[in-house]
């Protein structure tokens, strides 16, 4: 019998605000433990939360980017539970009136497109971080009160590959919107995975297992690759799945049941009395909508039509917004989009990868790359020289025209000088010359190479080739 998996995700995203959600403490990772704290985020009695309007805007912006309806009336609720990393013994969250409802994210797996539905997006506060010391645990509240957006999907995902594709697509959108840094190492994006399997032909979903707190996309993928067959195996051998929470052990490559709680969760949500409801006028929402960036899927289509790029190239370029921006700037400044795309896709991405750096930290500017492209187009330098210059521009920055001048790299297109080199090369290499004349065409490349060497790489290769063909007769 075949078993069909059903997967839903809950993604927690730390929003990119300057201050925390309910107080003015800095919302930034790192820092010595308990140095970004105040009476509000430490949960002191008598303190009152004060909502950061930017957190509301970023959540709504996210909703608008993935086609959610913005709830005309939204409110905060208290979720009550005890855990040492949560100082108030309740978490301010949203229960029945979240900021955003509905929506979807388009994914593509093995050429098949599909929309993964979004149930809702709500806003809540992050909790502190705990560390374990032998017989006790330590808590750092720097992260407590960081604005956290929870995106809940419909159970529309059917394979581990789709789950991974969804997370990548969502991350790309969040980065485009400037909503979150989406830095996985820093825990900006964390994910709970709900999954079940059911026999083909059964419409009712199987019993759901939750895998908690995954912080890498690879982890989600591998956990599902392991967990779905495990559930199938239990059912095949006549067993039953018990609803439980499991944890993915990355080193062992297995999911394990977490110590089952004595009681099922009973959070006793009730409206947060300290916070007033959020009622967003349609004009405000429309104003925010007008600031939305062009989303990756749309940009990809535009790069194809506007610059005549192949689909694949456009896909590579839009994967990272900074790279796509850099490409467009270079394309416009150089007037040669195809060359700009080639440089960005090969040399720029390779150097970024080798240096483990990002465009914003690189010395290379779109202006200097465009200058380099123009120098090649105007035949001032040849491509190998341009490649050499590129490395220098990437490392140190600078103006390519100046560099060509100071280094004397301008290409030799002067026929007189080239003729002299060509005559020398022909005289010094009678063998290849004879080969070429006997019809061995590749011998010409050897001679071109000799001339390039004589010119110390500065000869215009096409002119050299034409010159040799003329001198040796026959094309």
């Amino acid at each position, binding site marked *: 019998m075949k078993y069909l998996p059903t997967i839903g995700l809950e993604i927690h995203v730390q929003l990119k*605000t*300057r*201050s925390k959600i309910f*107080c*003015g*403490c*800095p919302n930034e990772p790192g820092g*010595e*433990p*308990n*140095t*970004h*704290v*105040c*009476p509000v*985020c*430490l949960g002191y009695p008598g303190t009152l939360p*004060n*909502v*950061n*309007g*930017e*957190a*509301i805007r970023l959540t709504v912006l996210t909703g608008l980017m993935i086609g959610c309806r913005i709830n005309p009336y939204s*409110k905060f609720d208290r979720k*009550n539970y*005890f*855990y*040492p*990393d949560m100082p108030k013994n309740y978490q301010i969250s949203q229960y029945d009136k979240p900021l955003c409802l509905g929506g979807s994210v388009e994914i593509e797996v093995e050429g098949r497109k599909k929309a993964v539905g979004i149930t809702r997006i709500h806003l809540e506060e992050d909790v502190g971080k*705990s*560390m*374990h*010391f*032998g*017989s*006790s*645990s*330590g*808590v*750092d*509240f720097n992260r407590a009160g960081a604005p956290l957006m929870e995106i809940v999907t419909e159970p529309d995902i059917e394979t581990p590959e789709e789950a991974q594709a969804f997370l990548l697509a969502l991350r790309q959108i969040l980065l485009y919107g400037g909503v979150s840094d989406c830095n996985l190492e820093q825990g900006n994006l964390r994910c709970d995975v709900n999954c079940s399997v059911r026999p083909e032909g059964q419409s009712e979903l199987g019993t759901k297992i939750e895998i908690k707190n995954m912080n890498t996309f690879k982890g989600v993928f591998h956990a599902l690759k392991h967990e779905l067959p495990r559930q199938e195996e239990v059912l095949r051998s006549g067993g039953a799945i018990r609803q439980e929470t499991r*944890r993915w052990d990355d080193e062992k490559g297995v999911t394990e049941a*977490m*110590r089952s709680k004595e*009681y099922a969760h*009973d*959070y*006793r*949500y*009730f*409206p947060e*009395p300290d*916070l*007033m*409801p*959020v*009622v*967003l006028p349609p004009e405000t929402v429309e104003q925010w909508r007008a600031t939305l960036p062009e989303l990756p899927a749309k940009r990809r289509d535009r790069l194809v039509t506007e610059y005549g790029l192949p689909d694949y190239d456009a896909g590579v370029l839009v994967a990272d917004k900074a790279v796509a921006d850099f490409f467009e700037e270079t394309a416009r400044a150089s007037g040669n989009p195809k060359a700009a795309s080639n440089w960005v896709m090969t040399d720029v991405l390779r150097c970024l990868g080798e240096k483990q750096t990002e465009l914003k930290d690189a010395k290379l500017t779109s202006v200097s790359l465009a200058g380099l492209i123009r120098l090649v187009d105007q035949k001032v330098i040849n491509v190998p020289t341009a490649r050499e210059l590129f490395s220098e521009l990437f490392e140190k920055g600078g103006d390519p025209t100046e560099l060509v001048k100071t280094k004397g790299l301008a290409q030799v297109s002067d026929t007189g000088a080239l003729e002299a080199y060509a005559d020398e090369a022909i005289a010094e290499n009678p063998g290849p010359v004879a080969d070429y004349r006997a019809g061995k065409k590749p011998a010409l490349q050897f001679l071109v190479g000799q001339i390039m060497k004589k010119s110390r790489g500065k000869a215009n290769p096409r002119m050299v080739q034409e010159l040799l063909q003329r001198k040796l007769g026959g094309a």
Partner: protein
Amino acid sequence: MTDTFRDDASRLDVRYVAHLARLHLSDEEAAVFQPQLEQVLGYVRELGALDVEGVEPTAHAFPVQNVFRDDEVRPGLDHEAAMKNAPQERQGQFIVPKIIE
């Protein structure tokens, strides 16, 4: 709202509620509080007799909404002050009994 307050929960176990609040009740206390809890719940249940068809749930009594703060960093507590209430401290952190997952 949640299971605790479900309308059809004819009897709410006081020990369950006490556990949620991390309160330890002696047998005597449980015996006293169980009927009291039921009395309170019975009183609240009288609301169930009202016809609230078409009435919006009221979360707040004040007609105030959209109270937001600008996204600005403001000074908080310095580390020493923040740790003053910690019964135990280690490496700048609040020490709590070992958390077991």
